[in-house]
Every structure is written in structure tokens, then in C-alpha cells.
């Protein structure tokens, strides 16, 4: 197995609001290897974006707080490093692409100015050279008429073009890790396919690791090497992409996959997971999925299931796969 690039250990993030403490992330463990594309799936509000932002310490404080845990990037804990060092990591070593390409560019500057600025600052080059680099990057993301695009304002570009500009901009700094927070959600399907192809091509070519966040399982299946499934602030299953789609183990993952319509489907109605996503202020005790789970058993509403290995690189946090001694283990209670 390749070298580990990012190692998140027991990360908990809480938001302190007037309604109460929102436990957005509870003891999340996740690793990303060099050159790997890791997908992170989950429903809206399950904490995917919070996880992404925590890595770069971009959680607004207040109300958010990284409660405990460690995030090792190349062996260095990003949560305790100095602000100065962190600023260097941001952009140079870890870049991030956001959900809405509409508002990721500053509306009052031309695209060229913004790109050049980033390139000049991170690579310490003169403006003429930076311009060349920008044009080259725009060519690589298959932007038609790159020179023309440089002189345009963001509002003159379409969503897909803006997202490609963002990809070009973030990759121009040659990061080791790219965090893509639902980069294609706001785009229509054909543009989405283009952007994804470009993203995959460029990151594979350069050996950039990607944390790809999405709620679209189709996209994940196509793009990623490994997948982590999140539910209500916890990671419930991690597996290589093939294993996850052919043999999901966690009842939640199984439910998710059953809810996808297929061309050869003979069902009249799609199956749904009963119930709604729990609020994170007072989440269910034990396994957070148990109120909606079909396979619920005794221990589920009391004990938090440990993550266990059920196949090569396939881990799942569910009592179905924990052996009985662990179910009664008082240490894992919350």
C-alpha cells in the first residue's frame, strides 16, 4: 500500500449554538494515501463539508470548535501547527475547490488578475511568466480561448467555466492534496461529466491525492479508488470502490445503494430508508443509525459500534460484524 498522506484520527467537531451543542463530527478516522482519490459520501448535513473544512482549519470559530482529534498531514499535526505554517500549507500543499463555482471568484477582479495573483504568490514568478502559466493551466482544463477568459470578469463565465478556472487555479500551485467539496453539484450533467474527466485526468497525471466529497454515488463510483460513507457525523463504512458497490456491509450503505434507480430495474417504486436524518444536537445513543435500521438489535441503542475489518481495506462500524465480547465492552459506551 502506498504511503499515507493524510491521517485523521478521532476528529470531533462541535458547533455551539443557541439551540444547543451540535455534534457535527464524532471521532472520525480517515486516511488518504498518496495519489489516491478518496470519495466521501453521505446525506446533506451529515458533516462532509465540516470534515473538509476542518482539515484546513477553516471552521468559523465561533460557533464551531475542533473539539479533539488529530489531523496528520505528511506526519505534521495540522491542528496544532502555527498559523503561519498553516497558511503555507493552505494552497501550497493542500488546495480546496468549493461547492458553488458562482461565488468562488471575486466578482470585482478579472479572472486573469486573480489567477496570476495566486500563481505569483505561490510560485514567486514575475507577472509575464505567471500569465504564461495561467494560459497553460487553462489549456490543460480544456478552456476554449484561454487568453480571452483571462480578461473576463467572473460573471461573464458560465458555471462550468468558472469551476474549470478554479481547478486550474488550485492545481497551478501543485498541491499534494486537493479537497473537492461537491465541485460539480451546481453544474448540469453534461458539464459535470466534462469537469470530472478533467479533474481526474489532471490529478492522476500529477499524482495528486483527492478528497472528493459528493452525495452522488454515480460520480463516486466512476472517479474514486476508495469510498468512505458518512452518516450523522460518523464514518460508518470505508471500502475500495468495487467492494462497496458489489458488497456493501453496513445497513445504511445497503439502503443507499438500493435507493438508486437502475436501467434494468423491475421494481415499480424505489426503496427508501425509513425515517429522517437525526438532528445532531441530541443524536441517537449508540449507533446513530439504529432508529432507521432494519437489522437493529440489542446493543445498537446503547453501544457505539467499533470499526472492524471485514475484508481487504474494507472496514465497517456496525454491531452485525462486531463479535459479542465487544458489544458488552463498557469502554466504548458514550
Amino acid at each position, binding site marked *: 500500500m502506498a504511503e499515507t498522506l493524510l491521517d485523521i484520527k478521532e476528529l470531533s467537531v462541535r458547533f455551539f449554538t443557541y439551540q444547543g451543542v451540535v455534534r457535527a463530527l464524532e471521532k472520525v478516522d480517515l486516511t488518504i494515501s498518496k495519489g489516491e482519490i478518496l470519495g466521501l459520501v453521505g446525506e446533506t448535513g451529515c458533516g462532509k463539508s465540516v470534515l473538509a473544512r476542518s482539515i*484546513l482549519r*477553516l471552521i468559523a470559530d465561533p460557533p464551531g470548535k475542533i473539539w479533539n482529534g488529530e489531523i496528520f498531514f505528511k506526519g505534521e499535526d495540522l491542528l496544532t501547527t502555527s498559523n503561519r505554517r498553516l*497558511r*503555507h*500549507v*493552505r*494552497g*501550497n500543499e493542500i*488546495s*480546496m475547490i*468549493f*461547492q*458553488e463555482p458562482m*461565488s*468562488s*471568484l*471575486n*466578482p*470585482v*477582479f478579472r479572472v486573469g488578475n486573480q489567477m496570476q*495573483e*495566486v500563481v505569483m*504568490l*505561490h510560485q514567486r514568478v514575475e507577472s509575464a511568466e505567471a500569465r504564461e502559466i495561467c494560459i497553460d493551466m487553462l489549456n490543460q482544463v480544456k478552456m476554449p480561448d484561454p487568453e480571452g477568459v483571462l*480578461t473576463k*470578469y467572473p*460573471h461573464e463565465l458560465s458555471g462550468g467555466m468558472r469551476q474549470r478556472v*478554479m481547478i486550474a*487555479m*488550485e492545481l497551478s*500551485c501543485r498541491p499534494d492534496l486537493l*479537497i473537492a467539496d461537491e465541485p460539480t453539484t451546481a453544474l448540469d450533467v453534461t458539464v459535470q461529466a466534462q469537469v470530472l474527466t478533467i479533474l481526474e485526468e489532471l490529478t492522476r497525471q500529477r499524482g495528486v491525492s483527492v478528497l472528493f466529497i459528493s452525495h452522488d454515488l454515480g460520480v463516486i463510483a466512476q472517479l474514486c479508488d476508495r469510498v468512505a460513507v458518512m452518516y450523522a457525523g460518523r464514518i460508518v463504512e470505508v471500502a475500495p470502490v468495487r467492494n462497496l458497490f458489489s458488497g456493501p456491509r453496513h445497513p445504511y450503505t445497503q439502503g443507499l445503494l438500493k435507493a438508486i434507480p437502475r436501467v434494468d430495474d423491475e421494481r415499480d417504486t424505489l426503496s427508501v430508508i425509513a425515517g429522517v436524518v437525526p438532528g445532531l444536537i441530541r443524536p441517537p445513543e449508540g449507533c446513530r443509525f439504529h432508529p432507521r435500521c432494519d437489522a437493529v438489535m440489542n446493543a445498537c441503542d446503547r453501544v457505539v459500534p467499533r470499526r472492524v475489518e471485514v475484508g481487504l481495506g474494507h472496514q465497517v462500524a456496525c454491531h452485525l460484524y462486531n463479535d459479542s465480547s465487544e458489544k458488552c465492552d463498557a469502554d466504548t459506551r458514550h
Partner: protein
Amino acid sequence: MLNSIKKEHEWQIREFLFTLRLLSKNPSAVAGFVIIATMVFIAVTAPYIAPYDPIKISLRERLSAPSIVHIFGTDEMGRDILSRVMHGARISLRIGVLVIAIAGGLGAVIGAVAGYLGKQADNIIMRVMDVILSFPPLVLAMALAAALGPNLNNAILAVAFVMIPKFARMVRGEALAVKEKQFIAAARASGAGSMWIILHHIIPNCFSSVIILSTLLLGETILIAASLSFIGLGAQPPTPEWGAMISVGRKFLMDQWWYPTFPGLFILVTVIGFNILGDALRDILDPRIRR
């Protein structure tokens, strides 16, 4: 050579022409623009187009009524009022521009820092600004100008000080809105520090409002500066400042109406001009609504 420059700056030229075209389609903008352009023209060319030396005394012609020789009449020392008013435009506009440059620059930075940093920094900075705002601007400017000593430069500093909170307040409000935008998060994610974000993202996004507020406040600034001169805390005689001229001329209002009237009219017209222009610029300079 010329061609290459022309090509390189092609869009800037296009952009400028476009702005001019938008400007010309808006009647009040044209009115305001014409007034201000005339004032600027008078101010710049005063030494060449003024018919007389503004401080040359000619006692034989003192207090003569408007005529072909002296279109606006003369004052108690026989100085030509038209020439003095023209030179006065130089002083008033210079005061206006300097005050706004100082107040706008400082105010924008202060407001953006307060808005972006938030928390305690915001609290402390804005409470100080509130204290300044709680004084009537003219009274505070008077007190400051008096304390600093009555001359033109001190008057400029005093008026600028009074104007800072107006800019700071507005920019803070804008900064609060701008800092929630995703490009700020994106900038932070690519390693930008607070100061960089304030200077490169927050302030430029507040620019159109700052320009509009500047134009609107230029009128008020000129008025306050003239008022300071009127009570003797600004420009000193024999400087042909409008406020100072009215101050001396008010004694003659009953019998020689032209003496205080013409400087007064110039103040009126200039202030109105800036106000109209400011309003019109709001519609034109915002890149998001201009097309």
C-alpha cells in the same frame, strides 16, 4: 509601439468608453458631471482665465457693483470678486479631494479591519467611531481645528477626522456581507492571511460604495470647510476661500449684495453638483448592475 500599447489596453479603452456612454444616457449624471467638470476646469485654469489678480488691491474701485469691467463686482479692497471666486474653486476642490482621500482611505481600512476581524476588534473600533459620530460634525471639526491652530492644513485634517467614521461604518457593513462569500473562504483555503484578504478582497469589493459615498460627502466636506473658514478657523485672509469671503462679505450684504452672494452661489452649485453626480455614479459604477 503605439499600436502594441493600444492592443494591450484595448479592453480598458473599451471599458472607459462604455462607462462614458452609460454616463451620457443618464440626464442627472450629465448635469452633475457638467457642473463638476466646469468647476474643475475653472480651478485648474484659474491663473490663466481669471481677469484680474485675486489679491491685488485697488482701493479706487472698492465695492463697485457688477459691471462689464468687474462682472461679479469688487470687494471692500477693490479686488475683483470673479477672479477671487475662480481662485477659490482651486482651494475648495483641493480641500474636498484631500479630505476625502484621507478620510476615505483611512475609513475604508478601519471599517474593513473591523468588519473582517469581527469580535472584540470590531467592538472596540466601532465604539470609537460611534463616539466621533455622536458629535455634530461641524462642532467637532471646529473644536479640532481650533485646537490644532487656525490654518488651512489643520482645517483639512480636522474635517478628514470627522469624515472617517462615515466611511468606516459603511465599509464595515459591506465587509460583513463580503466576508461570508465563498471567494473569501477560497482565498483562505489557498493560504491568504487576514491583511491580504482585507486589502485584496474586502476593500476592492467595497470600492463602488466608497466612490459613491466620496462623491456625496465631497459636497458636505466643502461646506464644512467653508464653514470653518467662515468662522476664521480655516483659510486665512487674503486667501480667496469661499467661506472666508462670505464671512467678510456678510457685513456688506445689505448694501453690496454681490459681495457674499457670488461665493455663496459657487458653494451651492458645487455641492449640488457633487450630490447629483454621486447619486448617478451609484447606478453606473457597480459592475454587477451596469450591464
